[in-house]
C-alpha cells in the first residue's frame, strides 16, 4: 500500500511538474455537436500528442504542430465534458469542452401499467426520454405529444416539453374496456405501446334462486362494472349457504358473464353471494 502510494505520488508530482510548462490554453471550440467534424489550429513546430479524455470517450493522436488537427465526423460522438491536451516537446496546452447531443433520433418510452381497470383517473403514466442517434440524451427542450387511442375511437392527447431530456404525462383509462394504443411522438419519431383496459369491479351483484328437486339452483345476473363493461369470464363468485349452524361455500368462475351453482334446499337457509369486495343480495329459503 505504501509502495503504491509512493509510486502514485511520484507519478502525480511528475505530472504536476510537467504541468508547470503549460502554455496558454489550446484554441478549441467550447461546444461541439456529437458526431460533427471540426478542426483546430496549432502553433509551433515539432511533433506533439493530442489527448482527448472524458468518461464518454478517449482519443490519442500524434500531431504535427503548426498544422490543423481535424477530427472527422463521428469521431467524437458521446455527449459529455472533455479535456483536450496537446503535449508538445516543450509545453502542454490544454482546453476543456463539451460535446452536446445532436438531433432527436429515438425515444425511450415507458408506459405503465400495461393492464389496468377502466375509468381510472390518472391511471396511466407515460415517460419519454429523448435520445440522438448516438444514444446521447437530448437536453434541449423538445416537444413530445402523447396520444391514448381507445378501441371506441376516443383519443386523449397531451403535449409536454422535455426538461433535461425527459417528458411525462398522466392520462385516464377509458370508460370502455379493450386494447388502447398509447403513443409518444417527437417530430416524426413515434413510439407505440399497448395498454389493456379491463373492466373494473362489478357494480352490483344479484342472484336468483329456484327449486330443482332437493337442490336450489342459483344463478347471478350478468355481471357488469359501473360503466357497463362485462366482467371477464373466470372471475370467481362465491355462494354461501348458512343453515342450522352450518355453512357451505361454493366458488364458481363466471361463464358467459354469469355464475351458476346448486346448493342443498334446506328450509330456513340463508344464501348470500359475493365477488371480490362486492356483496350481492341475500335470499332466505324458501
Amino acid at each position, binding site marked *: 500500500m505504501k509502495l503504491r502510494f509512493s509510486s*502514485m505520488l511520484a507519478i*502525480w508530482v511528475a505530472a504536476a511538474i510537467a504541468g508547470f510548462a503549460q502554455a496558454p490554453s489550446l484554441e478549441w471550440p467550447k461546444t461541439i455537436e456529437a458526431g460533427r467534424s471540426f478542426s483546430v489550429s496549432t502553433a509551433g513546430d515539432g511533433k506533439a500528442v493530442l489527448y482527448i*479524455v472524458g468518461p464518454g470517450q478517449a482519443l*490519442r493522436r500524434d500531431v504535427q504542430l503548426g498544422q490543423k488537427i481535424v477530427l472527422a465526423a463521428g469521431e467524437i460522438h458521446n455527449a459529455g465534458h472533455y479535456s483536450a491536451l496537446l503535449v508538445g516537446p516543450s509545453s502542454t496546452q490544454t482546453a476543456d469542452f463539451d460535446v452536446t447531443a445532436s438531433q432527436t433520433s429515438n425515444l425511450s418510452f415507458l408506459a405503465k401499467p400495461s393492464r389496468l381497470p377502466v375509468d381510472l383517473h390518472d391511471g396511466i403514466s407515460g415517460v419519454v426520454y429523448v435520445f440522438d442517434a448516438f444514444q446521447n440524451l437530448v437536453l434541449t427542450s423538445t416537444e413530445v405529444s402523447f396520444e391514448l387511442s381507445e378501441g371506441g375511437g376516443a383519443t386523449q392527447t397531451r403535449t409536454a416539453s422535455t426538461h433535461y431530456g425527459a417528458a411525462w404525462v398522466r392520462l385516464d383509462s377509458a370508460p370502455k374496456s379493450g386494447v388502447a394504443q398509447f403513443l409518444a411522438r417527437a417530430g416524426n419519431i413515434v413510439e407505440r405501446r399497448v395498454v389493456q383496459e379491463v373492466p373494473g369491479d362489478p357494480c352490483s351483484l344479484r342472484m336468483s334462486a329456484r327449486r330443482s328437486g332437493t337442490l336450489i339452483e342459483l344463478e347471478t345476473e350478468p355481471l357488469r362494472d359501473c360503466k357497463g363493461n362485462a366482467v371477464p369470464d373466470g372471475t370467481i363468485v362465491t355462494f354461501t349457504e348458512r343453515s342450522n349452524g352450518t355453512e357451505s361455500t361454493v366458488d364458481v368462475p363466471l361463464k358467459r358473464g354469469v355464475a351458476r351453482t346448486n346448493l342443498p334446499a334446506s328450509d330456513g337457509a340463508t344464501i348470500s353471494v359475493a365477488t371480490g369486495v362486492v356483496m350481492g343480495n341475500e335470499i332466505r329459503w324458501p
Partner: protein
Amino acid sequence: MMKIPWARRYGALLLATGAILSGIRLLADEEPAVRVANADSVGPRMLEVQTRTAVVRDYLAAWQSLSHAFNENNASVLDADFTGIAREKLSDTIEGQQKLGIRTHYQDRKHDIRLVFYSPEGLSIQLLDTVEYDVLILDHDKPQATQHVRTQYLAVLTPTEVRWKVRILQSAPQ
C-alpha cells in the same frame, strides 16, 4: 554548469512544494464534499427521505466505481453501479483507453446534487450534479497532466434488485 537565476530556483522550489501537497491531497482519496439540495417533490412523484438518501449514496458510489474502473482500465468494476447506456459507454471508453495505452485517474472533489425528476411509476430518478474533479492522464504509465474540472453532470438512475444504478451519465453544460 549552467547558472539558474536565484528567483527561478526559488519559484521552482515553491511550485514543487505545491505539487507535492496537491499530490498528497489527490492521492489521499479523501471523501468529496457533498451537498444535497432539499427536494420533497420532484415532478410527478413524492420523494421519500429514504429514497433520496439511497439514490445519493448509490450515485456517489458510482463515482468511486468509475474512478477505479478508469484507473485500472477494468470495465467489470462498473457492474455494481452502472447499467444500460452508461455501462456501455463507459466500458467503450475503458476499452478505448486500453487500446491507446492510456489511463485516467478521476478523483471527485465536490458534489452539489439536486434531484430534478422522479418518474410517476418510480422507475427512474434524475439528478443534476455540479461536480468538481481532478483527472490525471497517464500514457503508458507516464503522467502527462492533471486537469481540474468543474462541470455539471446529469444522471438518470433506475432501481435494481438491491440498489439504484446509473443508467445515464452525461454532462449537462450550464
